[in-house]
């Protein structure tokens, strides 16, 4: 593997990731009855709401403490407390996430202390205010996501008596994927607590009357129970130790931690269901066995088309790893695997995954300008990642299979499914069809140009 380490220059050109509090908002959207307030200027919260609602096509209500200039000098705790009052009056949340921003952290606001003061001043007893320090400069949205999940669990989980349920921590997937993972676990008879569960909240059905906070999400009772679970499955190979909710549960409550990759691709899905088999003692149900067989059948049908694929893959580290594995399984070269955030784990996992290959470049803490250069050098013929990679198509003619976050120039990003055997099949078909489309739309003129010549001569 070509060892392209973090590529640093003095400027980021076309960012590949969003900032930390955005990921934290997503995590809180997976908690029942939760609302979020961002401690900072109004603009951050508005931009994040806009960014998220474009992808999900759902109203994303997030409050801001709306710090103004005097607040940056005298401190913004008054703003935050007033903001909490207003938020509670209008939304009646069951839990409130308090997130900081670059501004709040820079001027030295201690949101945990302000939250504690507020609880006392308003005589709120054990009401769950969950503060998470998420300066945007502290990391990308994938990091903010895990940090928030960890803080939520740390705040709510209790040392309850041991029970047989299994904690399942999912990374930032689509709501439809969370539903698919739940379906697989239901089929296998697993009794689980899934967190954060945004399968309904970020993809809510049309219904009247309108709910200001969409129904669904991991409940406070479930969160409290997580401390007594028989195991935690954390679907992330790339989460850093200090951000990992599973590590927290293992460290604090001694819940055994099983790390599983995101179940995209046949190998990763096998690992996931085998783990479930092991933990529950249940066999693989016939339905899933047949889905696996159908996936194999499809992989065979498509393998020759896929053999021509050279992919540039970019996005959250876990997503990049998952897509790289499905590429490797199907003979597509993951020629460039890139993430906007720094991720040692992704680099190491990619080394293992692509051991012995010299035509694969992994790069983290990078931007879309670098990714574009690498893709051109690597002669990539397919891009897999979020909408911000559209210049790969617009400028370089590399078609883009949209996956991950954000997808703002197509509908349905929240409904894509790439996990499990059935989801893997859907993703693989999208990839194969993209390769086929390039091939079929160009091959007549190409062949004509390459091989045809006007008949000439006497005989």
């Amino acid at each position, binding site marked *: 593997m070509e060892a392209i380490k973090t590529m640093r*220059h*003095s*400027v*980021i*050109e*076309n*960012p590949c*990731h*969003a*900032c*930390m*509090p*955005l990921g934290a908002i997503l995590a809180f959207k997976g908690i029942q009855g939760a609302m979020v*307030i961002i401690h900072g*200027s*109004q*603009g*951050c919260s*508005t*931009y*994040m*709401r*806009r*960014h998220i*609602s*474009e992808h*999900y096509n*759902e*109203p*994303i*209500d997030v*409050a*801001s*403490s*709306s710090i*103004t*200039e005097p607040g*940056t000098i005298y401190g913004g705790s008054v*703003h*935050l407390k*007033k*903001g*909490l*009052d*207003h*938020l509670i009056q*209008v939304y009646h949340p069951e839990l409130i996430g308090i997130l900081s921003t*670059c*501004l709040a952290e*820079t001027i030295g606001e201690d949101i945990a202390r302000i939250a504690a003061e507020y609880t006392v001043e308003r005589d709120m007893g054990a009401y769950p205010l969950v503060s998470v320090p998420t*300066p*945007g*400069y502290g990391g*990308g949205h994938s990091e903010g996501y895990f940090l928030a999940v960890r803080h939520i669990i740390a705040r709510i989980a209790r040392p309850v008596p041991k029970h047989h349920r299994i904690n399942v921590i999912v990374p930032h997937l689509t709501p439809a994927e969370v539903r698919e993972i739940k379906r697989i676990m239901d089929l296998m008879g697993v009794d689980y607590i899934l967190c954060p569960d945004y399968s309904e909240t970020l993809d*809510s*059905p*049309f219904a*009247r009357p*309108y709910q200001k906070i969409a129904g669904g999400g991991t409940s406070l009772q479930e969160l409290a129970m997580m401390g007594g679970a028989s195991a935690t499955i954390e679907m992330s190979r790339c989460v850093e130790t200090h951000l990992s909710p599973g590590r927290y549960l293992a460290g604090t409550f001694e819940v055994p931690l099983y790390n599983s990759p995101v179940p995209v691709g046949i190998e990763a899905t096998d690992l996931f269901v085998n783990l479930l088999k092991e933990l529950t003692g249940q066999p693989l149900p016939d339905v899933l066995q047949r889905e696996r067989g159908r996936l194999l059948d499809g992989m065979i049908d498509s393998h020759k088309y896929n053999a021509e694929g050279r992919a540039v893959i970019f996005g959250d580290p876990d997503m990049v790893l998952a897509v790289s594995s499905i590429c490797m399984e199907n003979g597509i070269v993951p020629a460039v695997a890139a993430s906007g955030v720094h991720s040692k784990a992704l680099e190491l996992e990619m080394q293992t995954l692509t051991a012995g290959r010299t035509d694969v470049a992994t790069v983290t803490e990078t931007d879309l*300008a670098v990714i574009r250069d690498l893709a051109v050098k690597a002669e990539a013929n397919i891009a897999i990642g979020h909408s911000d990679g559209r210049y790969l198509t617009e400028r370089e003619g590399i078609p883009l299979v949209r996956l991950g976050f954000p997808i703002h120039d197509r509908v349905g990003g929240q409904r894509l499914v790439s996990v499990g055997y059935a989801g893997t099949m859907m993703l693989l078909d999208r990839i194969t069809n993209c390769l086929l489309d390039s091939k079929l739309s160009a091959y007549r003129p190409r062949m004509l140009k390459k091989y045809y010549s006007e008949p000439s001569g006497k005989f």
Partner: protein
Amino acid sequence: MKTDRGETLLKARTGFIRTKGERMPTQSCEADSVSGSVSQRACVYCGARVVLNPITDAVHLVHGPIGCASYTFDIRGSLSSGAELYRYSFSTDLKEQDIIFGGERKLAAAIDELVQKYHPPLVLVYSTCVAGVIGDDLEAVCRAAAQRHGIAVLPVESSGFAGNKSEGYRVACEVLMRLMEAGNSPLPAMEPGINYLGDYNLAGELWIIGGYLRRMGVKLNAAFTGDSSLKALQTAPAAAFNIVQCAGSMGYLAKRMQERYGIPFFHVSFLGLQDSADSLRLIASATGDEEVMARTEELIAEEAGQAEPFIQAYRDKLSGKKAAVYVGGGFKAISLIKQFRELGVEVVMIGTQTGRKEEYDEIHNLVEDGTVILDDANPAELERFMSRQGADLLVGGVKERPLAYKLGVAFIDHNHDRKHPLSGFEGAVHFAREVYHTVCSPVWKYVKQGG
């Protein structure tokens, strides 16, 4: 109907909401957002970026942490006939150590790298909240870089907390003034044309209006800032007069240019048939040229003649419907009231993020009794008043769209991200068609049957 617990209205917000015809104190506006109210407003940086972003050959460099740049990466529909550099999103990506030790060196290095790579005539460096708080001296860094590279490098003092979007407009206008001053090399003798302020060439709107002007025989000198370049902007001081469309963002620049260069200005609007025709006549008569006036009448007759049958057909389908409007500035809100009237649609709720006092007065004069007027509204208020007023559609931006849809209400995208023009006679037809497409869609039939 949803039963309201009556608690969704915050006391701190009462002065910002009024109903025409009810005795109430005057509209509060131009104030800071209420903490925790879930305001739909954006920041100073956002406002400055809206105004300056369409300058196509500039490097737009955001000095701050990554997010501020990620959220503004090529999100606007301004089109260019030349350079494409403005679509890129550049950030100094400030990290913790920069916040401790300052980001000036990083900024200087970023400018150097970008100038080497892209050779732009202009670099605009946007300040963000963090850059503002750590006290980086953007002015000094930019001045030094300008000297090093012999090009224009200007700071945009747009720290987000220093006000809201309208403050950002003002900041941007100051930058534009500086750009014009910097181009103070003697202007080439040329026929005086007019400048067009407050059009961002969304989906080619500037080109539509520019086409009309050409047919009238009026020379368009510089446009602020749709499809503009540094060079074009620097010719602006030579203009005979300025026309101003989006007054919220550019009214200030018009005043400054009048003070500085003695260029008179007046307001125009190209939203709707009536406004478009009125505005073109105004421009023609300002030239004082009989021929121009005659050509303008021809143009209006032709264009309006083509558009009217369409508008009439849509009015037949839409008349009696009720609209809610929640947009960024007052100019757009006022134009929409008139434009909906052309379609037989009544505006029953109307609000803006950053409308000014004069604009609210005009809105108040234009709407019917019973219309709810809101400043800096939030989703809870929009939901409440749209439902109470029985709105059939909402006009708004990206964040408002899903709310409307979840309430089963039609929606019109009237923001900087849209991909179809709404200006001029054709724009009026597009608008009417969009209203028809959304209000009369078959999907609502299933929704009315209960979700």
